[in-house]
């Protein structure tokens, strides 16, 4: 038990830093002074495993698993409050996105409903060129919230009764363009 509390440097992944630094704007996190403005401003930090400040501390120390498995990245609503307030002008929201992508790439999405929704959304856009909110909702429910399906019914009904839920997806004309772009991007490799 006692050993468990002491983190041995050898067990940490210092390459993780390099990974993050190589992202656009990522090198900026070297300059974080751990002031906590981000966490103190973040609307959702109170439910996060670690606030954005601590995430940066963990990244810098090489706590790869802790960061990528944390709920933090999925609780970020992309409100950009932290980004515009950080005294070191670190693009925190972008780093959160980068961490999301990394977590998805590594399949660390178990129980992460936001990840499921995002992926569903992407396949929807790839399919139609646009998001079809009704189908998105149905597919997402089937994947992530099967047991909670009921709670969506009220919401869906609410929208439906107000004439706000379309049934037909809208497919763009040149969906092949999207497909081509997608193929090319895969070829080029993500940044």
């Amino acid at each position, binding site marked *: 038990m006692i050993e468990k509390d002491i983190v041995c440097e050898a067990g940490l992944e210092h390459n993780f830093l390099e990974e993050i630094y190589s992202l656009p704007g990522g090198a900026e996190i070297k300059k974080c002074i751990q002031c*906590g403005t981000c966490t*103190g401003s973040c609307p959702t930090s109170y439910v996060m495993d670690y606030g954005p400040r601590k995430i940066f501390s963990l990244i810098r120390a090489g706590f790869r698993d802790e960061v990528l498995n944390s709920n933090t990245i999925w609780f970020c609503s992309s409100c950009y409050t932290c980004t515009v307030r950080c005294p070191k002008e670190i693009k925190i929201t972008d780093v959160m996105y980068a961490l999301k992508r990394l977590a998805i790439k590594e399949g660390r999405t178990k129980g992460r409903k936001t990840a499921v929704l995002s992926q569903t959304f992407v396949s929807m856009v790839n399919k139609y060129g646009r998001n079809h909110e009704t189908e998105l909702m149905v597919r997402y429910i089937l994947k992530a919230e099967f047991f909670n399906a009921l709670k969506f019914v009220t919401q869906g009904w609410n929208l439906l009764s107000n004439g706000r839920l379309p049934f037909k997806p809208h497919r763009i004309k040149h969906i092949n363009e999207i497909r081509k772009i997608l193929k090319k991007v895969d070829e080029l490799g993500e940044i």
Partner: protein
Amino acid sequence: MDSEERIGVYICHCGTNIASKVDIAEIVEFAKGMKGVIVAKDYKFMCSDPGQGLIEKDIKEYNLNRIVVASCSPLMHEKTFRKVCERSGLNPYLFTMANIREQCSWVHIDENAATEKAKALVAAAIRRSAFLEPLERREVSINPTTLVVGGGIAGIQASLDLAEAGKKVVLVEREPSIGGHMAKFDKTFPTLDCAACILTPKMVQVGQHPNIELFTYSEVEDVSGYVGNFKVKIRKKARYVDENLCNGCGMCMEKCPGTRVPRKGNVHERLSLGPTSAIYLPSMQAVPAVPVIDRNSCIYFQKGKCRICEKVCERDAINFDMEDEFHEFEVGNIIIAAGFQTFDPSVVIRYRYGLLPNVLTAMDFEIMNCASGSTGGKILKSDGTEPKSVGIIHCVGSRDKRYHEYCSRVCCMYALKFAHLIKEKTNAEVYNFYIDLRCFGKGYEEFYDRLLGEDVRFVRGKVGEITDLAIHPGEQGKLIIRVEDTLIGAVRRVPVDMVILATGLEAPEGLAELAKKCNVSVGKDGFIIERHPKLGPVATATDGVFIAGACQSPKDIPDTVAQASAASSAVLSMIMRGKIEIESATAEIDEERCSGCRICNDLCPYMAISFEEEKGVSVINEALCKGCGTCVAACPSNAITAKHFTNEQIFSEIEGLLQ
């Protein structure tokens, strides 16, 4: 002169330092073969007394008019050998040095290569020396009067130092009274001594000193000239009260029906040190104790009727027709002591300064806390009651790339001072929200230690925002500070009654303009740039212009006073010398060749070049030129010559190197 050059060349062994790598004999032979060389000799230590004597003797004996020494770096011994020439009646600028030690024998392994390079360096020096011309030594005398701009503690200290040494001072302060920020404080960290008790006597002394001519409510209009001989023009703004007649009785202020328009901001901005009438004194300790009429608040100036002050003044000191006056002085040196201003936090909307009452700036708090201020030194909320809890937020506007990147250096300490004063005067709980506590001065850490013992709470975290939206019980009617306590790792909502923003220090309004007038520059941060960050912190790039206090960078009172005394002693040392030698190797413009394109005008970092409209040519003020040569290289008409670094001299040096 070229045809008559008689060059003496001396090659130094420097013990074995040079001789072990460079074939000295070969070089001597080589030098002898060069045009114009009359003698070429070598010696073990050229810089030794016998070595120097050798040159002196040869100059006389062979009637030499150029000397070349090949030895160490000119940075080491150029001065030594120039003196040798001078002693023998030869202009020191006719001496040339070839660096065959630092940049040759010491850095190369191969002896042949080193000898070849040494030859080239000697050849270059000999060739160059043929084109040298004697330069005059130039001296200017120093006017013993000094201009001090800014009458805060820095300006006061510097002025008194100079005045006590018997030198005349012209002190210009733009506010109606001297004293600066310090005059608004009650207590000062870390010793908590009473600011008024230590400052007021000095202010009075300045006001009465026979060697100090004090201009308050005045500004520097124009500065011209150069070290030792500046001309300054001062604008004395109309205060509508005659300083010579007024005896400071205060009748006018008592009877004045006008009220001074409060500064912008929230309710607490009405806080004031002096009377709030339209005719007012900035504080009761003001020096001079002569009131000023604020035109914007005066009923007469705004509506054309009143003049009560005029009626009640027994000394007939009020003069509504007063106009700005101009005064001109000649001074030898200038000390800029324009201090700072505090950051305006209303741009950091999330702290809601000016929107929520009871969010105060540090200066608001100082004024409120000052015994002679409008609350009589009581710490009160806007509703007149005492706060039960106070939050002090550090680093507002400082250490933030969006505002000022630098640390303001004094706010940690004054925040601790505030915490202590609040504890002393009220029963309030005090929180300090900080990122790092920077308490590095003498007695500062001890002060922090004392505060820890006084149960002041410290939360490490930069505050996210301040809100009045109560969500939890106990938050109603409070200001809620939302912050991550980074040491605990939790976001906290701390309800308090009053928030004090530890606003940072920034360059005061108008500093850049003032600097420009004095021909010095301000940095990216807005403060004046010193000559050298370590070794010239009170001088500037312009000779005769010095800086003291917070206008150089944020600093506390001890540092300010130290720098002020350093600046005054630098000035005194100039005055005592009486004269100052200025650069001889300056640039010169040939009027005949100058096409008047003005390209050079803006290039000079010392603003030494101006344009003569009548002649249509540019001219260089040699007193300002430092001989950098930037303009020379830029002139498309080849009209500018850099003395001692002329094109011919450098060309011949190049030829020598590659011959």
